[in-house]
């Protein structure tokens, strides 16, 4: 587009930290997180709303951050994979993905963990079917998913015993 477009001021809470920044109106949320905030744990896989590698939580709901503009997150709370751990301790979901060998190359893992996070926040004892449905929008090309199911089951168990 030839004419210059004014940046827009937005206020977003990212992993509990308030952030005020000026962004181009058509900057994608994933670009904002990766390039402006240096939160590179959120990945870009397909860039066509398919693979779910860019999944983050917006006000607790899993969304594909490549399919939203940063300006649309104005006023929202965003959680990325960097926001899962607290005080240097891995989140039970992160720990379970390690313990159950729920990852190989790891590219899809942040997105999967955030989809799992939305599932487990509303369902303490998910069935295998619930898990399959919750992560149907996250593509993994290494694992064949079996250990991912096991990791999420393990995380659910550990969080319940908490």
């Amino acid at each position, binding site marked *: 587009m030839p004419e210059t477009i004014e940046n827009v001021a937005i206020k977003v809470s990212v992993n509990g930290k308030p952030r005020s920044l000026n962004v181009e109106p058509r900057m994608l949320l994933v670009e904002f997180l990766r390039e402006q905030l240096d939160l590179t744990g959120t990945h870009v896989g397909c860039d*066509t709303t398919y693979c*779910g590698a860019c999944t983050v939580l917006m006000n607790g709901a899993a969304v594909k951050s490549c399919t939203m503009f940063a300006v649309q997150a104005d006023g929202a709370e965003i959680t990325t994979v960097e926001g899962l751990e607290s005080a240097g301790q891995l989140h039970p979901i992160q720990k379970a993905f390690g313990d159950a060998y729920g990852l190989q190359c790891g590219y899809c893992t942040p997105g999967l963990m955030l989809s799992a996070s939305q599932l487990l926040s509303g369902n303490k004892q998910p069935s295998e079917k619930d898990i399959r*449905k919750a992560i149907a*929008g996250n593509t993994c090309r290494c694992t064949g998913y079996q250990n991912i199911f096991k990791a999420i089951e393990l995380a659910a168990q550990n969080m319940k015993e908490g």
Partner: protein
Amino acid sequence: MLSQLGDEAKLLAGGQSLIPLMKLRFASPKHLVDLNFISGTSYIKEEDGALRFGALTRHAEVESSAGAAKVPILHDCAAGIADAQVRNRGTIGGSLAEADPSGDWATVLMTLETEVRCLSTKGERIVPLPEFIKDAYTTALSPDEVLGEVIVKVPRKASGGAYLAFKRSAPVYPTASAAVQLTMEGDVCKEAVIALGCVGLTPIRPKEAEFALRGKQLTDTAISAAVESARGAADPQSDMRGSADYKRTLVGALVKRAIEIAVQRAAGKQVEVSHIYA
């Protein structure tokens, strides 16, 4: 605003189709008008025997709504669209206003008495869904109008419906889909409405297939006749999702299964249905 900007403006609802289309440069709107910050556009109300959905009601909200669950075909649709992330953003109004031939909502809502409330600065008008969907990606909305509300009449107690869509994987559009709504009296079908999705430029109503069921006992012969008519009414294109022949066969199988489930639901049975994918 829309009347000033004209057709260089696009309305942004959930963005789960428009943003990918913009990235692929299939759409390059000069102006984007984001509807998401308008409050009071996302709701599900039950009034006078009808469900009213605000245009920006997300698929996930319909999926978890007790009101919408009373019409099982609505739940079949909402719970099966794409994946959890897309259902958290995508909206019922956006789906109808986009009128993608492979979209789920238009096909499902075609089997119910559905009206669309269109708003502009000049006032509002109510358009029945079959008149609202004009063609592929084309609706009755004029450039200065927005879709405000979707009004769905709750079917009678003896009525049951089912929506089945076959997809290659969760996030993609279905290869073919079928929605069936039957009103039964004992084992006789009083009313039958069928809509086929993804096998034409708009959802297709196979009238002969409906006729094959209406007033009949739903024997295997009657159902087979309806399935044959539905296959004949489908007008699919061969593409990366499958050949035209394959889709015609698939849509027949989906119609058959949807009829069987609709009959059970009309009798008050709980049958769980989800989109089918590997």
